[in-house]
């Protein structure tokens, strides 16, 4: 995480808390609106943080999101102490999902979360292992153009 962002805040994400799931990403989005980011940047951050948050709720057993904002970039570090992702390349494929029937009934499990995070970020680093859980480092720059929204 870069040393001194002008704005920093940590959000806690609870395990299996579907009722409040998505709360952190709504708050993150509202912070960026307060700062006056371009709507395309806000939308990319909203999508990426929501998908990352949901994965922590569903697979990561809870964790946190650290938000760091500077005028030209938004960093999200999303961490959990869950089981880790055994095969990252496979998980990154569109349509790959290990969602349970219950999750699917709630509209999750399309296997689009990680691919959407990738598509909406300028940099994505995934560090994962069975011992230490999963850590996503997402960077979205505000000056770049031509990045697809999804």
């Amino acid at each position: 995480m870069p040393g001194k962002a002008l704005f920093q805040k940590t959000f806690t994400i609870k395990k299996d808390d579907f009722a409040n799931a998505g709360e952190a990403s709504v708050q993150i989005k509202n912070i960026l609106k307060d700062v006056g980011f371009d709507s395309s940047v806000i939308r990319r951050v909203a999508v990426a943080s929501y998908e990352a948050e949901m994965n922590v709720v569903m697979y990561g057993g809870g964790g946190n999101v650290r938000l760091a904002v500077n005028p030209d970039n938004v960093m999200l570090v999303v961490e959990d102490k869950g089981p880790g992702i055994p095969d990252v390349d496979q998980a990154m494929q569109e349509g790959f999902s290990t969602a349970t029937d219950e999750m699917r009934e709630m509209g999750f499990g399309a296997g689009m979360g990680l691919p959407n995070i990738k598509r909406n970020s300028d940099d994505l680093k995934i560090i994962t292992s069975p011992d230490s859980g999963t850590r996503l480092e997402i960077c979205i720059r505000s000056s770049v153009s031509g990045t697809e929204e999804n």
Partner: protein
Amino acid sequence: MEQKKTKKHSLQIDLEKCVGCVLCMKACPIQAIRVRNGKAVIDDDRCVDCGECYRVCPHDAVRSQTTSFHDLKRFKYTVALPSPVLYTQFGREVSPNQILLALKKIGFDYVVDVAWICEKVNAAYRLYIEDHPTPMPMISTVCPAVVRLVAFLYPELADHIIPIDVPREVLARELRSKISRKKNVSEEEIGVIHITSCAAKIVSINNPIGLSKSALDGAIAINDIYGKILDVLDEVEDDEILQQSSGVGIGWAASGGEVRGIELHNCLAVSGVKDVIQILDELEAGKLKDIKYLEALVCPDGCIGGTQVVENRHVAKHRAESLVKMYGERSRVSLKVIKRQYREGYYTLPEGITCKPLPPLDIDPVKALQKRQRIEEIIPLLGGKECGACGAPNCKTLARDIVLGEAEMEDCVFIKLHTAEHK
């Protein structure tokens, strides 16, 4: 015609009646109200006219500025365009046709069954969505409060607003010139009046979004005209047929009506301001991409739950459902005609949605970020009781106001108490 002085919003605080309690401020879903010097103040740039403050005020201090029946005197020829909600406000024995005839009896020269146009607009929605597969979902323009929510708070979603105008405007545009020719009155002498379930429609007439000028001249509240209609219902003879609508158009009165009429798979109806906001948040997060059309109405259960209605909304909903059954779920509109009109732009929203996103904390992004950080630092210093005694709806909003220089730390009663004790 003399242009009346119009306020930006339909909802206004009556300063004589307002006692400065925190109820409206707390009820506002977008934190647009503060209590300053013992009176509630609505932020004009933020308010979307959803009516939550109006509902909650126990002192009758939130006024809704609708057109009065008296105002009609300034027109030579008057046209009534009643919301389908009006049909749900009377007993079982009263038919939509009788209600339309009653409007004539109380003085309107011309009365149109708007529910019928709702069915045509419904078909236009379908044609538009078939022509434009993305973005998904398209959002209804029917509720002015929803259009304002998007324009002010969710500008990212502006391209989801379906560029098809609402039935009342489509109709008013056509009627004015038509009647002017037929009846030999000038267009200015014709008063085209909507009979409305809510205050938000007034704003959409006085300060439209998506069109430079509304084609309507005003909106009379259902609860203002109800008694007049009731008085003449007995005298109405069912000798003229004004109702053309089927159950499809009448069904627009309640949540789910547009979705019923659009006849496409995967459309969603949401009602109630909190739920609407939640769904807009989901859209912004990229969810609900499989939904083709989103009917969003800020009032609970849709327009039958509007602020200016008479009947209990559950009773009205039940009534709407029976009317839908009675008049059938098959629309009799001519698709051929609608297709031609659609191509000619008859249903098109005259202008695009112009967004007015709320200003950032500071135009300088560095300062804005510093201010945002400062808000986070102030929050834990405040009382944390979310009481509203400071004049802001919650502690977080007070922190924001402090950073913007609109409030002080000492406005928090707990801080004030603490300072007093340590003097």
